[in-house]
């Protein structure tokens, strides 16, 4: 099979399988896991746009997600905006937040990027906690309106509706990422990552590019956050917490920073793998250790991620 065909046919086949899953998985638990995996897939693959494709080590990516969560929650609950619109508002505010973070970060390098973006995420969490009359503070917001189409309510359909909304968002996000990566802009990203000085000598403005890439990576991350709030009907400050960050990061790394599909595949694999361990009593702590060890092993043995490894082996 030619590479070209493989790049198109394999994802399409996967998509077809995912589209048929709800016919087989009729109980809501499995569907729920898929929905959570789709959300993490969007987070991880978009994070990979800045981390893998542009080499910006953004430690505040989950801030964009959190901003999306709270935007949708406040829009839908406080202002009564239709949830279908509210989730897209999450993308808008996340992009704006990304712009705020990106402006100072664009000029920095290496560890400083890690530290500033980390500080920003802490700042965002403090803001959410302190503005409790708007955000619900430490306890968050509950009873966020759910989705419906006409008379069809997305509650009590065993998550069928949410499954397809989640899958749809994942597809849109992936198409968006592919479009970005294959555009001339996307190609210039690689140039910056691999040879910054050379890129600058060719007239590519590195800082403008970094700002743009952070903003682009925030859009669907924010939308995913909005969907997360509407789907779970809750917004709570734990989304800024370290646990979510570590999990998403391990998805990016295990999936492979060079690919678009790697983090998505890793999101699906890790969600189901950790969940299958979660049911075993006594292993609750151990599953985090297993994920951390897997992350180290991938970094040591297959720096391109597991999907990158498969690609190299021509499977």
């Amino acid at each position, binding site marked *: 099979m030619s590479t070209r065909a493989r790049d198109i046919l394999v994802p399409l086949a996967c998509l077809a399988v995912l589209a048929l899953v709800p016919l087989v998985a009729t109980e809501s638990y499995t569907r729920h896991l898929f929905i959570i995996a789709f959300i993490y897939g969007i987070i991880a693959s978009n994070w990979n746009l800045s981390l893998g494709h542009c080499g910006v*080590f953004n430690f505040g990516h989950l801030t964009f997600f959190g901003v999306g969560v709270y935007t949708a929650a406040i829009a839908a609950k406080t202002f009564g905006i239709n949830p279908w619109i509210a989730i897209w508002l999450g993308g808008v505010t996340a992009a704006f937040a990304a712009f705020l973070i990106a402006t100072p970060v664009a000029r*920095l390098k290496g560890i400083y990027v890690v530290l500033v973006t980390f*500080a*920003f995420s802490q700042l965002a969490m403090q803001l959410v906690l302190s503005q409790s009359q708007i955000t619900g503070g430490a306890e968050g917001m509950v009873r966020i309106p759910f989705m419906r189409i006409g008379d069809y309510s997305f509650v009590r359909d065993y998550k069928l509706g949410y499954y397809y909304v989640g899958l749809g968002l994942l597809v849109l996000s992936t198409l968006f990422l592919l479009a970005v990566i294959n555009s001339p802009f996307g190609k210039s990203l690689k140039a910056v990552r691999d040879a910054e000085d050379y890129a600058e000598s060719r007239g590519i403005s590195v800082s403008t590019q970094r700002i743009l890439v952070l903003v682009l990576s925030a859009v669907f991350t924010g939308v995913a956050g909005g969907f997360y709030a509407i789907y779970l009907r809750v917004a709570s400050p734990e989304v800024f917490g*370290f646990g979510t960050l570590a999990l998403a990061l391990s998805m990016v790394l295990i999936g492979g920073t060079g690919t678009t599909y790697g983090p998505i595949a890793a999101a699906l694999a890790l969600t189901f793998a950790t969940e299958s361990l979660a049911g075993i009593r006594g292993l609750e702590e151990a599953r*985090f250790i297993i994920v*951390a060890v897997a992350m*180290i092993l991938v970094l040591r043995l297959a720096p391109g991620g597991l999907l990158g490894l498969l690609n190299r082996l021509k499977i």
Partner: protein
Amino acid sequence: MIETLLAALVSGLVLGSLYALMASGLSVVWTTLGVFNFAHGALMMVGAFVAWTVSEAAGLGLLTGIAAGTLVAALLGVLIERLLVRPFYGHRSMLLITVMTTLAAMIILEKGAQIIWGARLKQLPRLIDGEVSILGATISAHEAVLVGLAPLILFAIWRFTLKTRTGRSLRAVGQNQNSAALIGIDVPVAFAIAFGLSAALAGLTGALLGSIRFITPVMGAEPLVKAMIVVIFGGLGSLGATAGAAYLIGLIEALLIVWLGLYWTPFVLFLMMIIVLVFRPNGIFGGKE
């Protein structure tokens, strides 16, 4: 008003001493290897737990416990260097890869501690009981010991890096690895020493802190963040600047708590950190690049 200010001053001194011990360890690894060790706080926690096991559970006394905590943390530090840092030397994005591997080490240590020591809070007895009054503000005698001990330890590290062969070799490796190797310094050994020394400092700090705060698997997280702020303020590099920044941040924090309340203090500290990073990435004491 004056009394409140003095109380803040003393409080800042206690915080500053703690931050100085934490940050100097972080800084030793950073200056020698160019690695930002996110597992530093977790090593501190391990030091506290081991000290507790030896001194309380096994009943061998507090000083033995502190020594054991320091030693175990040091060994773990060497192990982390060997397994999680050394394989990536010379890699193009070594700095960022080691951010991730040390993060993974942090998760493993924290979760492992929870499995080993359980979820219930623990505390060590104090080195000395009773209270001490400084400038009209009262702190526990144990904290007074910490305040006195921190400058001594910092001074010892400073002399070590300045005057001893091993200490100088760490500095040499930090400044130019190849040249260091060419005069016969064993670079990997220097890296292991730096990591071990830094981890020993973390373990010692943790064991001392375990008498003031409570020992939990996540007790290292907050001090790590503060140490990060300190190292950034001081400028990633010199030990003296780091120590100065530690006391400065401790004082600022204590004053902020008085003026703004505990509520907004962390917010302002993070904001300051961002401003310093953006406008003076080499720290407030650091020179231009």
